[in-house]
């Protein structure tokens, strides 16, 4: 959480619209944001903090009369930058091996043979994901969060065509390494 004081309630001017807008966005985007941040390498607690901060910033942005255009990419950009600022855990967790919990969730309920295959397939995918360049991984994660190429470009500060090339390169790499 930032040290700067944060308004706990909306200002009296234009309260209804912004609250409504922020609430709708919160319901729609909270989970994709959390998932993006967790997959980026943050812990669940860190991701919660970042998302909380992002929505507080959104309220302030809307209360100050900020533009409501591209608000989805605006939120992802705020969250992405906050995650980037937590470089320690971000870098550290990028290099961590596949968690036992992740493996367990994949093979949950499968027969032993099927579980073994799934586990192996998932390990290969994990290794392939972490071997991607940062930009490639981030593009894929944002794309998995439902963002369009234009929005991904706004979050990462890239041209839309560059996003297209990066996504294409990343998927081809994954397909080649995972042999799915």
């Amino acid at each position, binding site marked *: 959480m930032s040290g700067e004081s944060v308004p706990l309630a909306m200002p009296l001017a234009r309260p209804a619209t912004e609250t409504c807008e922020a609430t709708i966005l919160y319901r729609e985007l909270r989970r994709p944001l*959390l998932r993006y941040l967790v997959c980026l390498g943050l812990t*669940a607690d860190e991701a919660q903090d970042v998302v909380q901060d992002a929505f507080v910033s959104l309220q302030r942005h809307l209360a100050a009369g900020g533009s409501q255009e591209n608000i989805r990419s605006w939120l992802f950009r705020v969250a992405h930058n906050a995650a980037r600022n937590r470089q320690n855990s971000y870098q550290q967790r990028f290099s961590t091996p596949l*968690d036992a919990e992740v493996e*367990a969730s994949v093979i949950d309920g499968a027969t032993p043979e099927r579980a073994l295959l799934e586990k192996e397939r998932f390990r290969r995918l994990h290794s392939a994901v972490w071997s991607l360049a940062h930009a490639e991984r981030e593009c894929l994660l944002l794309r998995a969060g439902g963002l369009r*190429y234009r929005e991904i470009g706004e979050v990462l500060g890239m041209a839309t065509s560059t996003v297209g090339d990066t*996504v*294409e390169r990343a*998927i081809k790499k*994954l397909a080649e390494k995972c042999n*799915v």
Partner: protein
Amino acid sequence: MCDFSRKLIAQMDGELPEGESAELERHLSACADCRNRLATYKRTSSAFNAYCEAKFAAETGRKSSRWLPAAVAVGAAAAIIAALLILPHLRVAQFPPRMSPQGKAAPVAAQPAEPPVIAANPADAAHPVPNRMNRASRQHIGAALPRGRNVERETRSAALVQSSRVRNPTPFPPQPPIEITIPADAMFPPGAVPPGMSFTAELTIAADGSPEQLGLRPRLAGFERSKNQP
């Protein structure tokens, strides 16, 4: 590799302009290689999404799993207490009603020939031990009884029945104890208590069937007192 292969992923993501998209669709109907590539990219994309979901679920699940053992224990304890509160009410109907002031007795409910012993563990149910409570626990429960009370209270536990029989002769026949044996695994997370540990619940209820007192007595298999021991 044909020229269209570079546009397959953009097509999959719906990022191609309408004209190009239609042109690519026509090409796909004729090019098996591009169709195969597109299918591979779709599988890769799905696998990546599944990976993200699993990682997210594992991370958020790990956070909640810290509280899981405590939640299980609290839930089990709540279920046991709820069962203990309900069961005595079922037994109240088996007691003969109190004599009316005019000396007329209301119809007497049927008395079961063999007192039921309720055991959560099927092994315990096979070997009911109605009067297994030792002297110490009888004294403990007896001491917990409020002194000076008349027959307004009664108990369904063996100790209480025995003590009330001595101090307060009542028109009620002595009742066998209800013992509810609860396996420790039902109350605590696995490994939290030694194997073979169980708990015996001792419940005191008032004449109106409302619960008064509940005690849980731990019991470890193999360490029970023999009949000859004091």
